[in-house]
């Protein structure tokens, strides 16, 4: 690790910290319909949208109506996405004449983008037409993110309202999240990305003549080898900058190109890399300020922010430390292996990393993208050292509450807050209270449902995949603990709606496409429903005046308890699986064995 590396990590975090408050206050004003500087621009457009779509702005929804409307909206958009993928060959904006997407892959992709996961079992530049990328995938990038923000706002309203049966209006919250927050930010952001060299066009792919023609030998299904000389290279183009902006800001993560943010047309410079990492944490960080402001307890919002920051720094410390070490197995080729400049591994493990980002920014990107539910990558997690690869997996397994996805991170964290105050209440033998609301059995039942569905999907699907040699294991490129990590990571990423991959696994098979699609849908909707039930329950409660036994939720003690609960729940649930995967791989690597 270097001082320069840590300076860059701290600079990145300082940017997030500085911007969290103004954006958080702005979002609170937008969702509470208070006047903002943007009113003259957006208010007339918002009114026009309601008039055209027939939305009654004043209509308030119970949690059940909010939930069912969200489900129907998601179902319709999922089916439209599926239909466009299946028909893309007959539709416009397909200069490469790409074929229709296969049914299982189309469903996987539709579920993936509807749930804000953006898991990609396909190579985008050879599978999806420009129309599919723009009309369906970019559309979902906006509205799955807006949906996450709307749901977090609904939960905050549940906490802040008293003796109320309603949580707001899903359509209004969606409109405000998209129009007032995501769209304007993306317009500026996409322009900044273009300034760094991110492409934005509708051209067919460029053909470049190779300076050195290459001979490529391929083996067909019949076992016969054929050799051909390749003299040209296709250089993919497309409307990338506009996709890239919402991909990062909405913590979606689905790349326009297969190598995602490692591709020079998606993430060309160290500055664009900084902007991308910053935009992942921007809205989730700001939402903690929105929470504090809307519940009229700003210090509580900062206490939640502090818990997220603590877990973030713990993760980046482990990942950066692991990646800054030389791989001990290279002893065979260099007796004096070290991470020193000029050695065989200068700076540490550079396998799978881009030279323009280096080790610190690759470890930081991997931590940030899995703290949040983004899933974009600027380096290959599969090539990280075992403990470096452990960090992204653990980040997702903790529920992606370390800033988390836009909206999803905050509501996930608030479920842990409910559990923390419940545990604090048990310790002192009092009915637990959270910001003046008594936490009762129904709230804890729903919180436990939320917490248990997550590992049930991850561990259940992983176990099934591991038990089936022809379906689950045949897709693996690596054996032993690394192979286990690849399967575990895939289902963790899908259920956590992250979308990053550990590579090494050929997931474009009917089994993986359909099982991962199910994991994504379960991980999104089966967890949102109990969360909204808690919001509805809290909104109905009376306020209880604070007493000497009330556990304050704005102190460092609260932050420590919250961090402890998240770590203990995560460790108890996933440690056995992790010990057979990346931890065992680390120990075997020290003993001289690789996979």
């Amino acid at each position, binding site marked *: 690790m270097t001082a320069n590396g840590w300076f860059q990590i701290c600079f990145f975090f300082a940017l997030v910290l500085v911007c969290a408050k103004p954006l958080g206050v702005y979002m609170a004003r937008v969702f509470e319909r208070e006047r903002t500087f943007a009113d003259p621009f957006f208010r007339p457009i918002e009114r026009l949208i309601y008039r055209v779509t027939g939305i009654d702005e004043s209509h308030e929804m119970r949690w*059940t109506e909010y939930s069912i409307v969200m*489900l129907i909206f998601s*179902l319709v958009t999922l089916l439209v996405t599926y239909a466009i993928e299946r028909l893309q060959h007959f539709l416009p904006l397909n200069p490469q004449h790409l074929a229709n997407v296969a049914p*299982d892959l189309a*469903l996987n992709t539709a*579920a993936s983008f509807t749930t804000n996961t953006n898991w990609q079992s396909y190579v985008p530049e050879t599978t999806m037409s420009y129309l599919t990328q723009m009309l369906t995938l970019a559309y979902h990038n906006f509205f799955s993110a807006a949906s996450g923000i709307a749901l977090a706002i609904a939960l905050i309203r549940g906490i802040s309202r008293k003796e109320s049966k309603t949580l707001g209006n899903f359509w209004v919250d969606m409109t405000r999240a998209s129009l007032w927050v995501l769209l304007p930010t993306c317009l500026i952001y996409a322009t900044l990305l273009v300034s760094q060299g991110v492409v934005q066009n509708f051209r067919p792919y460029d053909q470049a003549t190779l300076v050195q023609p290459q001979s490529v030998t391929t083996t067909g299904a019949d076992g016969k080898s054929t050799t051909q000389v390749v003299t040209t290279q296709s250089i993919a183009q497309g409307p990338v900058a506009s996709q890239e902006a919402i991909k990062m800001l909405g913590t979606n993560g689905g790349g326009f190109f297969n190598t995602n943010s490692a591709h020079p047309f998606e993430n060309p410079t160290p500055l664009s890399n900084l902007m991308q990492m910053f935009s992942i944490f921007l809205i989730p960080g700001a939402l903690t300020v929105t929470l504090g402001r809307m519940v009229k307890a700003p210090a509580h919002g900062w206490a939640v922010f502090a818990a997220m920051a603590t877990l973030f720094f713990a993760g980046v410390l482990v990942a950066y430390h692991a990646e800054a070490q030389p791989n001990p197995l290279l002893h065979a080729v260099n007796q004096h292996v070290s991470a020193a400049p000029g050695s065989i591994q200068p700076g540490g493990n550079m396998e799978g990393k881009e030279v323009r980002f280096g080790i610190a920014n690759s470890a930081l990107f991997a931590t940030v993208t899995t703290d949040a539910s983004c899933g974009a990558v600027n380096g290959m997690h599969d090539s990280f050292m075992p403990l470096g690869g452990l960090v992204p997996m653990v980040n997702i397994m903790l529920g992606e509450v370390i800033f988390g996805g836009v909206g999803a991170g905050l509501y996930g964290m608030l479920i842990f807050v409910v559990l923390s105050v419940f545990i604090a209440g048990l310790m002192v033998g009092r009915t637990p209270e959270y910001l003046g609301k008594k936490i*009762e059995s129904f709230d804890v039942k729903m919180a436990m*449902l939320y917490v248990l569905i997550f590992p049930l999907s991850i561990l259940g699907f992983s176990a099934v995949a591991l038990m089936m040699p022809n379906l689950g294991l045949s897709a693996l490129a690596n054996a032993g603990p690394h192979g286990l990590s690849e399967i575990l990571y895939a289902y963790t990423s899908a259920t956590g709606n992250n979308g990053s991959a550990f590579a090494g696994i050929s997931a474009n098979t009917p089994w993986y496409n359909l099982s991962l699609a199910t994991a994504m849908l379960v991980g999104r909707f089966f967890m949102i429903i109990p969360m909204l039930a808690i919001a509805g329950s809290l909104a109905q409660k009376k306020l209880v005046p604070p007493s000497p036994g009330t556990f304050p939720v704005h102190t460092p003690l609260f932050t420590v308890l919250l961090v402890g609960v998240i770590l203990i729940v995560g460790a108890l649930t996933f440690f056995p699986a992790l010990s057979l995967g990346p931890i065992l791989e680390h120990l075997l690597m020290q003993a001289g064995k690789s996979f």
Partner: protein
Amino acid sequence: MADLALIAATLTFFLLSIAYTTGCDRLGEKNSGGKK
């Protein structure tokens, strides 16, 4: 045929989710003694 099967499976999942919402709501009513 594959399209129809996948669409039917998706519809079933979302119907289950709506039933899950209703189930949670009923549990909430039961826990609060039917009072809202």
